[in-house]
């Protein structure tokens, strides 16, 4: 193999020079809040709207996106990709019931694959970033594992799923805080603000710091040039909130409350993407290993999901580096 030094192979690098796809990550702390349901539904609706869509199951320890989509398990998925460096994403995608939707499933019998190391994580991320299609939907795992946070932060749309229960709300907030600090840690190092931030955090009482918004405020005061720069970078995070399993219409209103709390707490814009009503049909169709949307179109849920997919699908946002 002759290596041409003058024309190095840039395809192996992670970068933003070529347009990949708009990445949508669906995360949210607690298990069982409907991350897989929301991500599979978004993927299906985007595919139905005519976009080339790829759904990736990144719940490495407990994959079930294929079940939500009603697709049989294939022999090659993301786990094989991790273990075999010669594989590419195009080798492991599988077809679904929807012509425009492809899936990379995460199911496998392999043990210990949930713990990916930095190199493997980086390889997955660069493959995601380079994959050519319109939308890539990432179904993340529960919890605030570092790789989950990194996958979440690389997305253009960072969707967080809440349900109206306190435990879910607490975990989802925890998840958002963890992603905030993960991103902060990365950029404070780059901008050489680590000492200042550590200093501020050590004297939280004196500086009255109770939230990221406070921290940024104090930092901007102390560092009038680099502070705003970091603040600007962090403002790109722009969380999008989905409220799932709302039992009543009034509960959907809670989504606006969550948005407001996030805005006040983090100090950057967050959006309420939409609320989804609780529907027994979801559970029933899961039991039949069939997606809800194959049969049922006359439900509120269908309209709510469609509205959500349209919101994401229509305005092609500018890509932002994570």
């Amino acid at each position, binding site marked *: 193999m002759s290596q041409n030094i003058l024309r190095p192979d840039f395809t192996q690098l992670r970068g933003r020079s070529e347009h990949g796809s708009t990445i949508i990550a669906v995360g949210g702390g607690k298990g069982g809040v409907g991350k897989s349901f929301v991500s599979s539904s978004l993927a299906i609706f985007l595919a139905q709207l005519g976009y080339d869509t790829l759904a990736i199951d990144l719940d490495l320890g407990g994959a079930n996106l294929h079940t939500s989509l009603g697709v049989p398990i294939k022999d090659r998925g993301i786990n094989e990709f991790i273990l075999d460096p010669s594989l590419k994403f195009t080798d492991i995608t599988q077809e679904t019931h929807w012509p425009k939707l492809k899936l990379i499933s995460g199911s496998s019998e392999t043990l210990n694959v949930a713990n990916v190391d930095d190199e493997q994580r980086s390889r997955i991320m660069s493959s995601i970033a380079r994959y050519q299609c319109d939308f890539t939907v990432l179904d993340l795992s529960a919890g605030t594992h570092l790789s989950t946070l990194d996958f979440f932060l690389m997305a253009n749309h960072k969707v967080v799923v809440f349900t109206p229960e306190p435990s879910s709300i607490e975990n989802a*907030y925890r998840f958002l805080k963890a992603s905030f600090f993960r991103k902060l840690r990365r950029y404070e190092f780059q901008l050489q603000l680590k000492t200042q931030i550590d200093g501020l955090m050590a004297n939280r009482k004196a500086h009255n710091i*109770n939230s990221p918004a406070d921290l940024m405020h104090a930092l901007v005061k102390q560092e009038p040039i680099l502070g705003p720069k970091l603040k600007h970078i962090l403002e790109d995070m722009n969380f999008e909130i989905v409220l799932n399993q709302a039992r009543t219409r009034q509960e959907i*209103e809670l989504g606006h409350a969550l948005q407001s709390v996030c805005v006040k707490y983090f100090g950057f814009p967050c959006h309420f993407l939409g609320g989804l009503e609780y529907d027994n049909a979801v559970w029933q169709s899961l039991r039949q290993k069939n997606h809800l949307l194959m049969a049922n179109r006359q439900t509120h849920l269908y309209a709510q999901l469609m509205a959500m997919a349209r919101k994401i699908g229509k305005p092609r946002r500018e890509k932002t580096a994570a």
Partner: protein
Amino acid sequence: MKQMNDRYEGQTYYELLEVNPQAGPSDIYLAYQRARATYSASSPALYSMFTPQEAQDLMALIEEAFQTLSHQARRTAYDQKLGLVKAPPTKPTSAYESTPAKSSSDAWIGPVKVVRRSNEELPKGFARTKFSVYEVKAELEQEIQNVQECDGLFLQKARLYKGVTLEQMSEEIRVIKATLVALESNDLDVLPVAVFCRGFVIQYARVLGLDENKVASAYMKFFKARKVVK
């Protein structure tokens, strides 16, 4: 409280309420209602993010924002302070407003002073409408009293005499300004059918404190005559 003020210092009331600076009154009210639900002690959305004390302080700030933004005059003043809108020039800007009524020799339009409704005693020879205080002119009162047939110009004259602006009128009787301009300038082509016009004139007269039935029938005489001639 001081801490909260610190945290959100530099934020406008619009940012506090999370509304667009162009938001209408109903949007602002909706945002306020949502904020109230969000920062009430029992709200599940606060869980693990804000302490009840912080939520209370935040609510006080939001309350303050709403007090200003929900009040039109205070909001306008605040917008001017922010530099969102220019301060209104002392002279009326609209070309229509600034041209004096044809028939008048300006003498009868006294200095118009728009004041809020208050209960204080007026000096002798003055009266008030909902929007203004004006000097009573016997000659004009007489004319209004004896009106048999009148056109839009007469209505305009009466309005200017009473010191009510077009904007106030439009806001009060919920008729768009363009229609009122057409009404006052006898532009019958633009106006809707007779029954609506009659309704407008009745409302209009009521705001000015005129005898609404008399003015309306006087106007309709003119209206019908003109329509038939055409």
